[in-house]
């Protein structure tokens, strides 16, 4: 069960290829009304009905929060992933009816900041599309540093530069352009907040340097939706509901629990929000933690797991579900 969210019945109003990897999807309400208000950094969970399988993947809303006639998301095709992005790219057509969650924001701007410093990597640009629109509409002070592999994969780099000029700085991996991160972080005026969205390695690097250079944790915001990783199948006992289930190779633990008819709380399905945190009653084996929610201590303790993205290898696992 998605905590605190209600479903929205939408229709796909447009499908726009952006570059060789990224396609943009537009959604409108089927009843023609306005969609709920959201703020920059919010995401929706898109339900993908693919035969007898339902995938639920989170995507950042990238349109302007000032315009709620439609929601837009951009999906990067991941040929090696679990199939959600391929489903979106291959099977979703204009006019198709779909169901999405209400927007939820786990990566919101701190509007007390004197300045917003944004660091994007690759498809991590999407929440910044909405945040920059929101800030520009309110004369907010921001600066966006965007790293992409090549110019042709710099999704929306052209749009952003056109909109915001030299407030956007691009770095292309293939031209050996790299952020001078320490210099950038050390030259920001007091009262700046830092936002980073991109690959896990980039987020860890930026958080680590910021902490070392004296940025208080309250000023560093990050979002990384970990896609559930495939892995060896494993068996789990759900002690509360008295069921034993098998988690398939391409299935997440949360999906397997849901498939067994148990309805645990969830929100982001990407290891970020903490809603699906589950207590471990007993275990004999090794946890593969992939979330950004639990502390390192929690990970080591073996007492908690985030079933949306984390897995298990070993003899037995009993969960309080």
């Amino acid at each position, binding site marked *: 069960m998605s905590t605190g969210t209600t479903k929205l019945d939408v229709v796909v109003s447009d499908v726009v290829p952006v570059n060789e990897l990224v396609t943009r999807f537009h959604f409108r309400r089927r009843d023609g009304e306005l969609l709920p208000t959201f703020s920059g950094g919010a995401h929706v969970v898109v339900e993908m009905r693919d035969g007898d399988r339902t995938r639920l993947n989170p995507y950042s809303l990238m349109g302007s929060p000032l315009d709620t006639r439609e929601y837009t998301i951009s999906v990067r095709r991941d040929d090696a992933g679990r199939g959600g992005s391929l489903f979106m790219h291959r099977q979703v057509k204009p006019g198709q009816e779909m169901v999405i969650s209400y927007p939820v924001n786990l990566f919101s701007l701190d509007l007390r900041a*004197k300045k917003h410093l944004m660091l994007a990597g690759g498809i991590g640009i999407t929440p910044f599309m909405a945040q920059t629109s929101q800030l520009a509409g309110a004369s907010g002070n921001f600066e966006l540093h965007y790293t992409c592999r090549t110019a042709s994969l710099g999704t929306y780099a052209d749009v952003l530069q056109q909109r915001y000029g030299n407030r956007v700085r691009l770095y292309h991996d293939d031209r050996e352009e790299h952020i001078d991160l320490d210099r950038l972080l050390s030259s920001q005026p007091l009262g700046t907040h830092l936002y980073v969205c991109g690959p896990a390695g980039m987020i860890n690097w930026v958080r680590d340097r910021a902490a070392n250079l004296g940025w208080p944790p309250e000023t560093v915001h990050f979002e990384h939706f970990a896609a559930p990783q495939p892995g060896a199948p494993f068996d789990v006992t759900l002690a509360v509901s008295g069921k034993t289930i098998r988690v398939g190779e391409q299935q997440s633990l949360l999906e397997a629990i849901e498939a067994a008819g148990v309805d645990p709380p969830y929100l982001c399905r990407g290891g970020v929000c903490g809603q699906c945190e589950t207590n471990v009653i007993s275990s004999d084996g090794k946890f593969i933690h992939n979330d950004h929610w639990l502390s390192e201590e929690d990970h080591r303790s073996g007492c908690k797991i985030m079933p949306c993205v984390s897995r298990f290898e070993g003899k037995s696992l009993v969960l309080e579900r």
Partner: protein
Amino acid sequence: MAAKTIISRPVYGTLSPRPGKHHLFIADAEGALAITNMAGKAPSGFFDGAEIVFIPGPEGKHVAALEALKPMQLHIAPSFASLLPRLKQTLTNAHMGLRLYLAGTEGLIGQAMQVALEAGIDHTSIETEHRGSLARRVQCVHCKGITENVTTQPATCSHCGLLLLVRDHYSRRLAAFQGVCINAEDRSESPPIEEVFR
């Protein structure tokens, strides 16, 4: 050490060195001892990038102890009002990486924090340690005047003269506790006045 009563009542910790490029200390009177205590836990060279602004107060002690830490800068000020322009200027020109440490009386911590909040520093990012007097800055909720160094309960507003119950209800924005008229129904009532905030 102040006990938590209601949610807005500030609680203070013990200064500890944070990672950062510049360290700004503001202290009054016995607050200097919080800094010298912390110095024992600080990595070597920590005070090379530190600035200490100190109000010695009437007893005039502890200056030598702070000099001994060999901070990059030590500025002695006769009062908070006298250091305010300098503090504002420092924060206006500062960069991320500056860490703020406040030690001493509640009035000093609260007023310095008020300036820091305006400069965009989150109150949870500030290291604080309470030392010395528990005297309060109190805002009269009726006339809005602020009375400094309130030590009694109730206390007389130095602006409008009402007798005020000094509450634990605290405003970070105003850096003051709230004082509410204690005998609004019958002004001839005069509850006993006790010295409770020493």
